[in-house]
């Protein structure tokens, strides 16, 4: 009878397309929004992720996120280095700066200053140039998306000059950094240069990044630093989570995306529910006839579940495919959407959501089939 149920559905092309569209639309919308949401959260901690050499971050106790540092005294670096279990510790500067090209293009940028001597904190993903080039005077490295933002339509190259707060800077490398939350343009330079470019006063040390001695637990070392310096010291993983939680708790992003996801689900339920109900109503007399012939309610229920499952699977597959195609295209070709991927976890979650949408939508229709009086077939 499953085949019969599917043939019934396939025979009504208009409604079949409507049903599949409803599920596919919801799947696409939910997949896309949830993936972008997680992508944004990922960006909130991208700077922490890119500093792979360090496993402990030290900061002012009031700091809650990587994007809002409060300057430390320069002397704190020495104190941290003196804590037992710290293998090494270097300064890390983070701020926002305005960048102007010679053509007059003005953009906001995240500037990251790394230790002058070791250059620890620059991602090891150079597209052009090398990390050693950052030792040159006025040297900066920028990300490819930032380059395209400053010089639209031009090929990546080196040697171009920029102005950062009226100071000259020269692009000596292109480094593929993870997309940042606050800006699409990320600049890496030496700590000493970064403080000159921002010119924010005497104390400019945003963070101290440190590495625990091999064999020691990073959490314990971070605790030692906190105990001995009075500063906030946490592991990279903890800082990543804190930065994400800050975004969740202090911005409208979760509500905004959540609203779209809920609306997507409601629209899906509405389209699928109404169309499936119409399909069942048009076939109700036939269902009554099947009942009269002697087909049990449980059989009829299986038939409607099979129809709903068919619609759900095809609709979900198409929606997921469309979402995958969207992210495959945009992650390669649209800098603003770089780093947004369709995660397997999202695909699984949306599959459950699609199943709920189809189930809720078809519940009313299933009830109609179950309660239809077979005697109606004798009433002309």
């Amino acid at each position, binding site marked *: *009878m499953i*085949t*019969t149920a599917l*043939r*019934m*559905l*396939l*025979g*009504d092309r208009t409604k079949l397309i409507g049903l599949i569209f409803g599920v596919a639309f919801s799947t696409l919308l939910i997949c896309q929004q949830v993936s972008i949401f997680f992508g944004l959260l990922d960006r909130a901690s991208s700077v922490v992720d890119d500093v792979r050499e360090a496993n402990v971050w030290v900061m002012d106790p009031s700091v809650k996120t990587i994007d809002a540092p409060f300057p430390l005294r320069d002397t704190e670096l020495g104190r941290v280095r003196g804590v037992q279990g710290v293998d090494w510790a270097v300064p890390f500067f983070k701020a926002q700066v305005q960048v102007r090209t010679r053509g007059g293009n003005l953009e906001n940028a995240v500037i990251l200053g790394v230790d002058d001597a070791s250059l620890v904190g620059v991602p090891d993903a150079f597209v052009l140039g090398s990390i050693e080039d950052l030792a040159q005077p006025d040297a900066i490295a920028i990300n490819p998306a930032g380059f395209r933002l400053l010089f639209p339509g031009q090929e990546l190259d080196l040697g171009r000059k920029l102005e950062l707060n009226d100071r000259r800077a020269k692009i000596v490398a292109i480094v593929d950094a993870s997309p940042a939350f606050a800006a699409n343009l990320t600049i890496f330079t030496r700590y000493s240069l970064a403080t000159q470019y921002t010119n924010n006063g005497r104390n400019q040390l945003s963070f101290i990044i440190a590495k625990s001695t091999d064999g020691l637990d990073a959490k314990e070392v971070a605790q030692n630093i906190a105990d001995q310096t009075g500063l906030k010291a946490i592991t990279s993983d903890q800082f990543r989570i804190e930065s994400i939680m800050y975004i969740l708790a202090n911005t409208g992003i979760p509500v905004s995306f959540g609203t779209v996801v809920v609306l997507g689900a409601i629209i899906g339920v509405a389209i699928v529910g109404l169309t499936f109900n119409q399909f069942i109503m048009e*076939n109700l*007399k*036939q269902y*009554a*006839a*099947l*009942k*009269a*012939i*002697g*087909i*049990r*309610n449980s*059989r009829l229920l299986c038939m409607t579940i099979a129809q709903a499952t068919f619609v759900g699977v095809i609709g979900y597959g198409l929606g997921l495919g469309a979402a995958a195609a969207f992210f495959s295209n945009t992650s390669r070709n649209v800098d603003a959407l770089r780093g947004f991927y369709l995660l397997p976890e999202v695909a699984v979650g949306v599959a459950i959501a699609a199943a709920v949408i189809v189930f809720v939508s078809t519940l009313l229709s299933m009830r109609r089939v179950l309660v239809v009086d*077979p*005697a109606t*077939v*004798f*009433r*002309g």
Partner: protein
Amino acid sequence: MTANSHTQTATPEQIETHDLTVRCRGVEKSFGEGQTKVKVLRGTDFDVRAGEMSFLVGPSGCGKTTLISIVGGILSSDAGDVEVLGKNLGRMRNRKLADYRLSNFGFIFQQFNLLPALSAAENASIPLVARGESTRKAEHAAIELLEKLGLEGHNHKTPSQLSGGQQQRVAIARALVHEPKLLICDEPTASLDAASGRTVMELLRDIALDSHRSVIVVTHDNRIFDFADRIAHMADGVISKVENTCNETGDETDKE
């Protein structure tokens, strides 16, 4: 074929119980509650003998549809006994009753009620598929029956591609494919023109009726009364008169 008959009246008591496919005694059925309660069957007695085509006739609202719904195990009676093929339907639970209908009954409806997306063969094979036969075997049996009913070459057509008479033949095939012992037909010719209606009745007599199968036909169409072995007249919720007719080819029809 053209069936010819002469008639004589009979009472249920004159029929031997062991010959009966259907035996209804004192069947009562009401619809509604309180002041809106309507008593549709008022202690109805109704019998159908094995191997006979019985017509149930009467004016609209007299209770014909309610009676065949009860005989077909689709409705339950409020009082009285309903025995079909030796089983008391009132004592059966819903699931068992559904299985009993699927195994022993065939239904032909006024509006055919074929599934529009399915082909003639698929529609006709439904009872066998529902009983667990493989789709291939079921459709093979359905195609054989459709050919007997004169629908060669129409197996793959959907109901919308068939005429009313052809659709009713598909419905007959669906009602017979699982070889039921009782065939219940509700106004089988009402949606058909006169010629198609007679063709359908001829097919029912030729193919559906045999010594192991009884046919009940509810109808208003007095042009087909000559196909009946017995005609039960219903009025105000009771069988008011039963005419025994002897359908023998060559005899003249003798109607009251």
